C-alpha cells in the first residue's frame, strides 16, 4: 500500500513539474519565435509566469461544470495505465495499450461536453465538429499502432518497450512513425497549447476563461499532449531504453522535450487554421491511405514470413 502511495506521489510530482516547465517553455519560446522578449516581470526571466497565471485564474470565481471534475479524474487515470518509466506504473496489465487509448478517447469526448461552459450560443454544434475531426485523426494512428502490435506481438506497453532493446521501432516502421507523428501534431494543433484552443467555440475566446474550470481544462490538455508524446516515445523511440551509459530516464526526458519543442515550432510554422476542410483533406487523402498501406505491407510481410515461411 505504501509503495503504491509513494508511486502516486512520484507520478503527480513529475507531472506537475513538467507542466510547469512546459508552460514556461511554451510562453518563452512563443515569444522568441515572434522575435519578442516575453514575460519578464516576476524576475529571473519570468520564471514565475505559470504560477502568476495560475493565481490569476483562481483569483476570479466562475461557475464550474460537473464535467471538469470528470476531466480531472480521467486525465489522472491515464497515468495509472501508461508507464512513464519502467517502475512508475500503478497497474500492470496485458492490455494497457487498449485501456490507455480508451481513456484518451473518453477524455476528448469529455472535453466536448465541457465546451458548454461558455455563453456562446452554438457551442455544442461548433465544438462537436472539431472534436469529430480530432477523433478522426485517431484512425491513422490506430493503423500505425496496429502494425506495431503485429510486429511486437503484444498489447502491453511495457512489453513493447522491452522488445525494442536491439533497435527502435522507428527503423522497422518509418512510414508508420511519419503518419503517427503528423496525426499527433494535428491533434496538438487542434488542442491549442500555444495560443488559442480550437476546441473551444468562438473565433477568439479560445485562450480565455477564468476560474478553476479553466485551470483543469488547461491541465487536462497538457495531460493529453504528454500522453501523446509518451505514447510516441514508447511505440517508436524506445521509451526508457538507455543508450550505452546514459540512463533511460534521462533519455526519456531528452526525447520528450525535443519532441515538445519540435511540436511547438511546427505549430507556429503552420500558422492559424482557417479552413477545417484542409485538415479533413490531409487526414482522408494522405494519412489514412499511407497508414493503411503501411499496415497491409507489414501484415503481408508477417504472413509471408511466419505462416508460409517464404522469407
Amino acid at each position, binding site marked *: 500500500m505504501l509503495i503504491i502511495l509513494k508511486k502516486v506521489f512520484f507520478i503527480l510530482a513529475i507531472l506537475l513539474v513538467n507542466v510547469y516547465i512546459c508552460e514556461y517553455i511554451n510562453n518563452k519560446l512563443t515569444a522568441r519565435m515572434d522575435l519578442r522578449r516575453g514575460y519578464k516581470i516576476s524576475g529571473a526571466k519570468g520564471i514565475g509566469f505559470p504560477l502568476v497565471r495560475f493565481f490569476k485564474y483562481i483569483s476570479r470565481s466562475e461557475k464550474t461544470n460537473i464535467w471538469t471534475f470528470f476531466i480531472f479524474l480521467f486525465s489522472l487515470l491515464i497515468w495509472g495505465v501508461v508507464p512513464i518509466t519502467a517502475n512508475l506504473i500503478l497497474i500492470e496489465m496485458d492490455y494497457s495499450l487498449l485501456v490507455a487509448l480508451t481513456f484518451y478517447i473518453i477524455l476528448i469526448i469529455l472535453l466536448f461536453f465541457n465546451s458548454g461552459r461558455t455563453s456562446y450560443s452554438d457551442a455544442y454544434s461548433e465544438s462537436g465538429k472539431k472534436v469529430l475531426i480530432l477523433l478522426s485523426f485517431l484512425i491513422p494512428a490506430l493503423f500505425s499502432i496496429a502494425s506495431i502490435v503485429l510486429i511486437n506481438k503484444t498489447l502491453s506497453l511495457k512489453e513493447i518497450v522491452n522488445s525494442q532493446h536491439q533497435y527502435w521501432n522507428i527503423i522497422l516502421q518509418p512510414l508508420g512513425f511519419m503518419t503517427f507523428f503528423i496525426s499527433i501534431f494535428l491533434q496538438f494543433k487542434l488542442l491549442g497549447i500555444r495560443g488559442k484552443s480550437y476546441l473551444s467555440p468562438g473565433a477568439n475566446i479560445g485562450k480565455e476563461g477564468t476560474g478553476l474550470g479553466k485551470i483543469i481544462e488547461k491541465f487536462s490538455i497538457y495531460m493529453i499532449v504528454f500522453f501523446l508524446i509518451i505514447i510516441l516515445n514508447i511505440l517508436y523511440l524506445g521509451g526508457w531504453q538507455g543508450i550505452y551509459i546514459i540512463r533511460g530516464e534521462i533519455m526519456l526526458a531528452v526525447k520528450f522535450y525535443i519532441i515538445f519543442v519540435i511540436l511547438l515550432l511546427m505549430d507556429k*510554422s503552420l500558422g492559424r487554421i482557417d479552413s477545417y476542410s484542409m485538415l479533413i483533406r490531409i487526414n482522408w487523402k494522405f494519412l489514412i491511405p499511407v497508414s493503411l498501406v503501411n499496415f497491409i505491407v507489414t501484415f503481408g510481410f508477417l504472413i509471408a514470413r511466419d505462416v508460409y515461411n517464404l522469407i
Partner: protein
Amino acid sequence: MLRLIKNFFIVFGNIFRKPHTIIYPRERIIIPDGSRGVLHLKVDPDSLEIICKGCGLCKIICSQGCITVQKRAEDKGREVLDEFCLDLSKCIFCGNCVEFCKMNAIDMSYKYQLAEFDKKNLKLEKTELVKPSGTIRDFW
C-alpha cells in the same frame, strides 16, 4: 508542404536571433523627425521673455478650439501675453497654430508621453508650456 518546411526553419532561426523588442525603461526609441508633440512657447534667448504677444491668431485658427489666449496692455501701448492655456484633451496635434503664427512664437516639442489620472491636469498653463524649452527631443 514546402512552405511549411521553409517556415519551420525561419521560426527555428528566430529563437537564436536577437529580439526586436525595445526594453522600455532602459532603452530609447528615436521618434521620427518632425513628429508633433505638445505645444511649446518659445522664449527669447536674450531677454528671457516669452516671444508671444497674445495676438490670438492661433486661437482663431485652431479647429478644436483648445487654445485660450488673453493679452494685457501695459504702459506705452505695449501688449503682453497674460494667459495662454492649452487644453490637451481637445488638442489633436495638427500643427496649424505653428504654421499660422506670425511671430514664430510657438513650436511643437517632441513630448508625447502624456497620461493623467485626473482630467483637470490635462489643461496646461503658460508656466508649464514654457518649461520643456531645454529638451529638444523627448526620448523614452
